[in-house]
């Protein structure tokens, strides 16, 4: 069957299988920033936005995206770069495998929460599990990006 979506602001029609999850559809169409890390709907590496809300694309049936607006990190390069710069300056970036999903969640948080407390930030990021440079370094960078040092 076919789904019609807006992908990073451009209209697209994708041919999908019944059993297909959105992460596979998007990877097949060149969005290789999307990684599947855990296979158990836990790690958050596959995070994309559907109508601006972060979801796990590895667990979302592709048909559920029909008629929706999808945003991947390829569509928010400017903001992603701004945050990535802060991450790197803080020494909070390592292999980068989990970065796209992590950054998509941080950017969604920036859009959704105004002036969050440290507790709010930790709560929002609980669904992103890979933190290979250490938890504190990333949290410092996120707080700096959110402007709540």
């Amino acid at each position: 069957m076919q789904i019609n979506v807006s992908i990073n602001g451009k209209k697209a029609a994708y041919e999908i299988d019944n059993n297909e999850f959105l992460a596979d559809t998007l990877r097949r169409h060149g969005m290789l920033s999307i990684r599947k890390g855990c296979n158990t709907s836990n790690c958050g590496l596959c995070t994309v936005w559907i109508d601006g809300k972060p979801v796990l694309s590895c667990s979302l049936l592709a048909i559920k995206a029909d008629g929706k607006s999808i945003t991947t990190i390829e569509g928010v390069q400017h903001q992603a770069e701004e945050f990535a710069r802060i991450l790197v300056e803080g020494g909070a970036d390592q292999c980068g495998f989990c970065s796209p999903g992590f950054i998509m969640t941080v950017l969604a948080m920036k859009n959704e929460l105004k002036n969050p407390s440290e507790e709010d930030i930790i709560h929002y990021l609980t669904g992103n599990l890979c933190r290979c440079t250490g938890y504190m370094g990333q949290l410092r960078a996120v707080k700096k990006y959110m402007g709540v040092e």
Partner: protein
Amino acid sequence: MFTMISLVQPATLDEAYDVLMKSKNNTILGGCGYLRMGSKRISTGIELTKLNLNYISEKDGFVEIGAYATLRDLETSPILNKHFNGVIEKAVAGIIGVQFRSMVTAGATVFSKYGFSDPLTALLALDCDVELFKGGRMPLEDFLSRPFEKDILVRILLKSNGRKAVYKNFRNAASDYSILNVSVSRLDDDFRIVAGARPSTARIAKKASALISGKFLQSPPDEALISEAAKLAQEELNFGTNMRGTKEYREELCRVLVKRAIEEVLECK
């Protein structure tokens, strides 16, 4: 991995129900958060997006939650947050992460009667009805005690009667499943004590609830009575062992969490 031979998005509930009943392996799809982890064999998956069941509204003295409202919708709903001491938000906030909660649905959590469910425990402590397409409207407690029957859960209704509730849980780690969860609600002098993830489905501790109901309106809270109610809840409910905790461990948790929840709900204004 699961298999699904065909997939439909019906435009009406009648149509969805017809497809559901056509074959034994036809299944209503919720948020599908668990689909990838199982090996379910589905003939026709019935996806309900086109029925517009993703809403939370308030009318005629009830808060209505459509079956396709996500757990994240419940968490951030201004309507739900101003009722029931915000207990629904607290009950869903610990589930996996924001992204997961933005996909999985209230209706599927309730209809599946998941033993580990956090929101089910809080809903059962409130005056909650569920509306099934074929089975009609009934109290959540009745629904939970019925044997499984194919149907479509359309909406969840919470009486907005000023009942205040508290939610407590114990997890080994943030975002893990609850080893035990407890909710205690109070409407004037009527108390309801519920425990879930026992690890079986949430249940009301009737005797313990009766013991403290009608006692605290005139006189100040009696600590010995609260402890007695917590012990009674531990005794009257049955607990089991699974990979997350033993029966004995859950019994101890129940007593402690119920006591704390009663003390806290007494402070709710």
